């Protein structure tokens, strides 16, 4: 898979891929159909694994030649050693976790760097929906409240607090709208929050 394929399939992933150095060892937590690892392996010579729980997505990833490990990431990343990856990705899946904080701490434990993305609940159409008295349903939150796999709702500002709480340094924080970077009023105009994080250096 090349960059153009990734760009047209998943512009958000194409943006994030720029932050993953070539030849790095990567863990993609919640790798889905494996499209990101597929791209990183074939275009950036990265190595590593995807983690996925769903049978159909494990199959999709395997068909792509992605090394996928089937496990519930809710149970943490205990099989991986400290700092065993250059980059750990957790893209659009953290909001589905019950134990967000525990997983986030584990992600930065096993990775020298982490890239986390999640739907920004403060995106303006979501605010409008709430003002109208309805739970937001949009392209980035495409579920009704009663069948959503997203059990945690957060905004960019909220996540900054959690990152600080976990002792993480925010290297970059970007809001994307339809895969493009939003610089002006990001917490209002971005539907996807992307954080690049690492453990604060201990002195």
């Amino acid at each position, binding site marked *: 898979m090349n960059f153009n394929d990734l760009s047209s399939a998943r512009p958000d992933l194409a943006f994030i891929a720029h932050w993953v150095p070539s030849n790095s060892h990567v863990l993609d937590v919640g790798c889905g159909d494996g499209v990101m690892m597929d791209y990183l392996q074939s275009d950036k010579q990265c*190595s590593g694994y995807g983690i996925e729980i769903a*049978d159909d997505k494990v*199959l999709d990833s395997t*068909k792509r*030649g992605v*090394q996928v490990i*089937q496990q519930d990431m809710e149970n943490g990343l205990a099989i991986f050693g400290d700092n*065993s990856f250059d980059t750990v990705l957790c893209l659009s899946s953290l909001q589905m976790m019950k134990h967000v904080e525990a997983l986030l701490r584990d992600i930065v434990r096993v990775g020298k760097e982490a890239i986390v993305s999640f739907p920004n609940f403060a995106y303006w159409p979501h605010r409008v929906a709430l003002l109208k008295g309805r739970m937001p349903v949009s392209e980035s939150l495409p579920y009704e409240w009663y069948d959503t796999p997203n059990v945690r709702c957060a905004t960019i500002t909220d996540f900054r607090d959690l990152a600080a709480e976990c002792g993480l340094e925010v290297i970059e924080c970007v809001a994307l709208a339809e895969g493009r970077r939003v610089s002006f009023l990001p917490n209002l105009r971005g539907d996807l929050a992307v954080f690049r994080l690492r453990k604060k250096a201990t002195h």
Partner: protein
Amino acid sequence: MQFEQPLWLQSGASLHNYMLMYETYGTLNADKSNAVLVCHALNASHHVAGEYEGVPKSLGWWDNMVGPGKPLDTDKFFVIGINNLGSCFGSTGPMHVNPATGKPYGAAFPVVTVEDWVAAQARLADELGIKQFAAVMGGSLGGMQALAWSIMYPDRLRHCVVIASTAKLSAQNIAFNDVARQAILSDPDYHGGDFYEHGVVPKNGLRVARMVGHITYLSDDDMAEKFGRKLRDAAEAGAYKFDFGVDFEIESYLRYQGDKFSEYFDANTYLLITKALDYFDPARAHGGDLAKTLAATKAKFFLASFTTDWRFSPERSQEIVQALVTNRRKVTYAEIDAPHGHDAFLLEDPRYLNLVRAYYGQVWNEIKEAA
């Protein structure tokens, strides 16, 4: 295939002039890069797939996995099934004549290990001119052989496919095996292993051994669903018999399985194979450190376990996965949510079989790209 050169075994003993039975499926390509070795588990053989002409009920033990168009597609791969030493399906075993005494080996057949089997398999590969397998594959005890291949001959396989297996038996596993062995050893018809010359078979011992083993292959849920507390003789309107015959369906089923098994399986083989299972522990040579043990491997790995398998549970496979990721080996691992316990690895399950098919699709792509 007959081998003249002695095979030195882990125990220090050796086998001189032995025979290995094998079967092949598909066609070996010109550069001999499409060979897959399939290793068998406890009671199986070299007859992996297909049916012998004119022999009904002779379907290979992994026919749903191996064959034309099957997950391990013999239209693409050259598949070899091999019968291990000590077995009772044609390769040299305890029922054969010991050239040193002129009598059947019996209990004098040397105890063989998983590593011994793999060393013998490697000799067969030499004879067939296969320097490197596209994959070595096995389930359960067969998975142990595949794992041993990756450690002993890292350059001789590109992929290692380990299904429902473990890097070592637990105390509970060994305990079950020993109950099975005791059943055989204490059968008066066993005659210290020399029952062949007495013209008898320790059927009762074998039967109990198989019954115990069989329990460990099934899950509690599966047994509950298949048998529950159903009584054998429904005609008697649910009345207990108040004797020690067969009341429950499960008793009838296990006895039937035990009877069937004791008709065709060899008691000495059962002892040997359970011992090979017990002894398998490649990490023992590395102070129990499996990651260090697997540092020698070069293959890419595919592992699968089944959620209700309590004989070799998913945790056992996870230990292998953990040791492999520590070494940054390429590994794909699936945990199949199946109700059938350890036996699931032999059964029809589209999630499992499709995944193996997808994995072999990748193995095949590599062969095509290299050509």
